[in-house]
C-alpha cells in the first residue's frame, strides 16, 4: 500500500506500459493453454462420443452410419454371459477395493507416525508391485494357487486384484496421513481419547476423503483389469473385460459399443453423485494445505454426508 502511493508519476507510466505488455503476453499464453486444453479434451472425448453414436447404428460394422436402432441395447440385455461377467466384475471390484483400502488405511496410519527398523525396506516392498509387470504377478498368483492345491475362482481373482490395487491405495492414504497434523491426535489423547477412539473420532474422519478416493481408484483398476483377471479367474468367474477381450476373436459387435455407452453413463452418474465432491475436497485440501484447518476439513466431511 505505502510503496504504491509513494511511486513517482513517471515511473507509474512505465509500469502502465509494462502492465499492458504483460497483459498481452498473458493473453497469448492463456490462448495457447486454452487451445492445448481444447485439443486435449477432444483427444480424450472424441472416441467416447464415437462409441456412443455407433451404439445406435443399425449396421453390424462400426464404420459407416446406416440408421438408428435400439437393437444393440436389446441384444445386450439378453446376453446372459455378458450380464454374468458384469456381475462377476462388480463383485470382484467391490471386494478388492474394500479389502485393499482397509489394508492400505492400516499401513498408512502406522507408517506415517511410527519409526521402526526396516521401515524403508517395508515401504519399498509395499510399492514393489507397481514396478513388477502385471503379467509376472499374474503368473505368480496362478503358480502359487497351483502349488497350494487351491482352485482358481473368486478367491484367487480378488487376491490378485488386491495385489494390484494395494500399492495405489497405500500411496494415496500414506500421503493423506502424513499431511495430518500429529498434534491433532495428541490433543485427542489429552482430551481423554484412548488410541482407538482417537483414531475413530479424529484420524479416520479426517482421512475419509482419501479413503473414498482409494476405494474409487481401486474399484476402477480392478474393474478394468484384463491381464490379471485373464489368469487368476476360474470356474464361473469370467470378468467383463476378459469376456470382451475374448470377443476379439470373432470381431467386436456394436453390442459392445452399447455396453461401453452404458458404462460411460453409469460412471458419469456415480462420479457426479459421490466422486466429484470427494475429489474436489481432496484437491482443495491438497492445494490449500495449511490454510484448511481441521475444523473446515471436519466440516467438509460432515457436509458430504
Amino acid at each position: 500500500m505505502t510503496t504504491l502511493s509513494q511511486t513517482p508519476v513517471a515511473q507509474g507510466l512505465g509500469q502502465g506500459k509494462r502492465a499492458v505488455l504483460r497483459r498481452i503476453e498473458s493473453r497469448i499464453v492463456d490462448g495457447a493453454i486454452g487451445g492445448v486444453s481444447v485439443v486435449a479434451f477432444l483427444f480424450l472425448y472424441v472416441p467416447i462420443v464415437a462409441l456412443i453414436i455407433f451404439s445406435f447404428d443399425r449396421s453390424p460394422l462400426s464404420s459407416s452410419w446406416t440408421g438408428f436402432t435400439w437393437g444393440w441395447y436389446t441384444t445386450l440385455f439378453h446376453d446372459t454371459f455378458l450380464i454374468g461377467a458384469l456381475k462377476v466384475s462388480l463383485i470382484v471390484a467391490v471386494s478388492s477395493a474394500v479389502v485393499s483400502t482397509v489394508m492400505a488405511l492400516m499401513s498408512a496410519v502406522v507408517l506415517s507416525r511410527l519409526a521402526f527398523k526396516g521401515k524403508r525396506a517395508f515401504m519399498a516392498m509395499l510399492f514393489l508391485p507397481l514396478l513388477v509387470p502385471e503379467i509376472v504377478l499374474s503368473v505368480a498368483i496362478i503358480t502359487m494357487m497351483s502349488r497350494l492345491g487351491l482352485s482358481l475362482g473368486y478367491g484367487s481373482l480378488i487376491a490378485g486384484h488386491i495385489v494390484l490395487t494395494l500399492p495405489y491405495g497405500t500411496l494415496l492414504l500414506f500421503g493423506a496421513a502424513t499431511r495430518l497434523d500429529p498434534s491433532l491426535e495428541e490433543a485427542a489423547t489429552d482430551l481423554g481419547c484412548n488410541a482407538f477412539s482417537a483414531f475413530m473420532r479424529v484420524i479416520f474422519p479426517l482421512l475419509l476423503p482419501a479413503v473414498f478416493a482409494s476405494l474409487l481408484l481401486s474399484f476402477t483398476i480392478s474393474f478394468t483389469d484384463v491381464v490379471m483377471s485373464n489368469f487368476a479367474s476360474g470356474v464361473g468367474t469370467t470378468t467383463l473385460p476378459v469376456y470382451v477381450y475374448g470377443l476379439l476373436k470373432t470381431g467386436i459387435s456394436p453390442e459392445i459399443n452399447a455396453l461401453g455407452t452404458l458404462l460411460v453413463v453409469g460412471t458419469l452418474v456415480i462420479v457426479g453423485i459421490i466422486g466429484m465432491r470427494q475429489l474436489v475436497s481432496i484437491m482443495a485440501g491438497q492445494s490449500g494445505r495449511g490454510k484448511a484447518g481441521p475444523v473446515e476439513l471436519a466440516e467438509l466431511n460432515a457436509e458430504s454426508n
Partner: protein
Amino acid sequence: MKHKDEKGVEVVKRRTERTGMTSRRNMLTRSIALLVLLGGSLGGVIAGGSGASAASKGSLHIYAWAGEVPATMVKAFEKATGITVTVDTATSNEAMLAKIAAGNSGYDVVEPSQYAVQELKQQKLIVPISHAKLVGFSDEGTPYQSPSYDTGDKYSLPWLTGSTGLIYNSTCTGGPVNSWSVLWNPAFTGKLYVLDNELSAYITGLQYLGFKASSTNKAEIAQATAALVAQKPLLAGYNSTNSAQLVASGQACAAEVYSGGTTAAAVATNPSVVHYILPHAGGTIWVDSWSIVKGSKNVSNAYKWLNFALQPKNAASAAISAQEATTNHAAYKYIPAKDLNNSAIYTPLASAATADFILDPGSALTYFNSGWLQVQAG
C-alpha cells in the same frame, strides 16, 4: 471486529460438534457394518468358490471361446439334462494352456484350437475320448477328418472352423485378387493390413514365398522375415480388430483377416465388391474342438455335453450365432443359405483342402520370435 471473529469461529465449532459428530458416528457404524458384511461374503465366496454348486443332477464347467457356445444352447442343455452349467471365456490358447496346466482348474470341458490340442495332449492334460460313448459323430469326407494334430479324433471333437485368408475390395484393387502378393503391391501403399499376431503375420510371408505356413525350417522363416520387413512400409498397420470393416468401407484395399464374425458381416454388406478368399497358396484353417480335461469330476456330464453338441440342430445354432462354420455336415441343412453362400463363413471345400493347419511350431518358435522382433524394429 476481533470479538465478532471469535464468536464466528465458536459458532462454526459448535455446529460441527453437533451435526458433524452424530453424522460421523453414523458414518462409522455404517462403514463398519458394510465392512463386516463384505468380509463375511468374501469369506463365503472364497470357501464356496472351489466347491461346485450342488445341483440335483450335478454340474459341468466349460471353458470355451467367447461366442462359440450360445447361451440358448446352454439353457437348452440345462433344461434337457438338469445339469448346472458354467461357461467361462478363453482369450487365447496360451491362457487356456496356462490355466489347465496349473492343475485344479475345475474345468471339465475345454475348447482348444488345433495346436493347443497338440500341446494339451503332449502334456497329458486332456484325456482320450471314448468314441463308444458318442452318438452321431462322423467327420467323414470333411477336411477335419482325423486331422494331423489329432489322428483318429482321439482327444478332440471338431466343433467350429474358420480360416485365415484375404479380404479385398474389388473397386479398390480394380479386379479380382487371388494371391498374397497383393499385400506387397506398392500401388496399394497405406491401404493394406496384416493381422497383429506373430504367427498369423508369418502366414502371409511364408505362403507368399511358396512355403508352408506351418514351416519350421530356419532358412524359410528367415526369408519370410525379410519379406515381412519389405512389406512393412506398404502397410497401414497391423490390425486384428477392424480391418474387414475398413476394407468394406473402402478405406483399405486388402487385408489379412480371420474368417467369420465381422469379416462375414463385411462380405455380406456388399458381396459384389467385398470378397473373402483363401489365396491360391492356401491360407490356413483353424479348428476349435471339444476336449475333456484330465481330472474332471463330471466326466459323465462332459459326455452328455459332447453328445448334445453333436446333434445337428445344436451344432447349427452355435455356428449361426458365432458366424463361423460348423464342422458337422449333418448340420448344414439347418444353416441359412445366406451363411452357406458367404465365402467368409463356409470357405469352399476345394480351397480349404489345400489350406495348412497352423500347428505348434515347437522349437522353431524362437526363429519366429526373433524374426518378428526384426520386423517390428525394421
